[in-house]
């Protein structure tokens, strides 16, 4: 089950890599970032049912991978980060907020809206935390992997 999910997440991320005109030789790597992020999200959410916490953990893993790949492939981090983050961006939250609002379930709409904002903040915080780590860590990570 987890395997199928991460394979699907891989293809989802690659599809967005195509839409954002990522160079062909980086497709696989951005796909791996997205897939790892989603896997991490699923694992956390299965044990601790909070989408915000799970997104936080997932984005930390994903950003670390993106930075490592960036060093190793000599390419801007943006390329891996933007594509990989797509599975975690709260698109569903936007829909459910609008849906409940229109249907007149105001409580549900407010709850969903707040959850969406929480996830967005968690993603932001995770990116900030990971980018605050010193660069040599990632050089070391990239170096060890290439040897």
């Amino acid at each position: 089950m987890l395997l199928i999910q991460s394979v699907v997440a891989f293809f989802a991320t690659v599809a967005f890599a195509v839409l954002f005109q990522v160079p062909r030789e980086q497709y696989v790597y951005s796909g791996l970032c997205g897939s790892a992020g989603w896997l991490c999200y699923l694992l956390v959410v299965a044990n601790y049912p909070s989408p915000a916490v799970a997104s936080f953990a997932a984005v930390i893993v994903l950003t670390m991978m993106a930075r490592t790949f960036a060093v190793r492939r000599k390419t801007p981090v943006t390329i891996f980060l933007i594509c990989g983050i797509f599975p975690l961006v709260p698109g569903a939250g936007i829909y459910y907020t609008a849906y409940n609002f229109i249907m007149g379930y105001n409580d549900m709409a407010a709850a969903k809206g707040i959850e969406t904002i929480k996830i967005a903040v968690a993603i932001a915080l995770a990116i900030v935390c990971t980018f605050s780590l010193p660069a040599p860590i990632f050089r070391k990570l990239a170096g060890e992997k290439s040897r």
Partner: protein
Amino acid sequence: MEPNNSQEKNREVLELTSRIGEVLLKNGGEIFRVQETMQRIAKAYGVKRFHVYVLANGIFTSIEEDGTQISRQLAQETGCKGPDDACQVRHVPLSSIHLGRVAAVNNLSREIVEQRCTMEQAWQKIEEIDQIPFTSQWFQVFASGVGSASFCYLLGGSVLDSLASFISGMLVWCFVLFLSARKANKIMLNILSSALVTLTGVLFFHFIFGENMDKIIIGSIIPLVPGVPLTNSIRDFLNGDYLSGTIRMIDAVLVACCIALGVGFMLSLVTMLTGPIV
């Protein structure tokens, strides 16, 4: 003629760096990357006093030209004091993201810093980079379909839902391409596209196939979701570019609101015409 040459050269460096910065910013580079790339290139071509200020949609650059004989003579003749500054302002409107060009500029700047590229070569290369084509529209439409179907499945949709999402994801990207070719504004583009997605989702669910209407719609909404401005805005804030971060954050929130508005509009229309759905 000698001092004049160096002044000419300074001005050319200014033009070149501004052009490179423009290409980088236009295609989705972060503020910090644009600033640093421009500074490194200017330094590599031997310009010492180079200043640059980058915003989400504009670049301001200047070079202080003191010490050259020409400007000193001029200063003496005209009686004015101080260095003869050269500067450039570029307006860079928000446009579509092309990460391939960002990567290409990154490589170019690495070559320049390692002194493997003369200024003529750099000019030629940056113009080539700005012409790197987008992937063909049919491939983009297909990718949008695959992305939509995959997200529908990831968020708990069945295989049939994913199929429906695949078709409506392709449809919505056709619509987006159609509207952007006609220079529709961003707000209407997002409202109309998400309304279209909702409509196809409802139609699929009621008349053709599909088990969860919400999953179909969410899957095919994902290509519209503002993931890029959100990520870029966070990174701008992180690097201390609060103003640009704010501009991009507003962009992200605006697009998200437009999507919600489009979905809400179509859902309420359908509810009005046919009674409560689901």
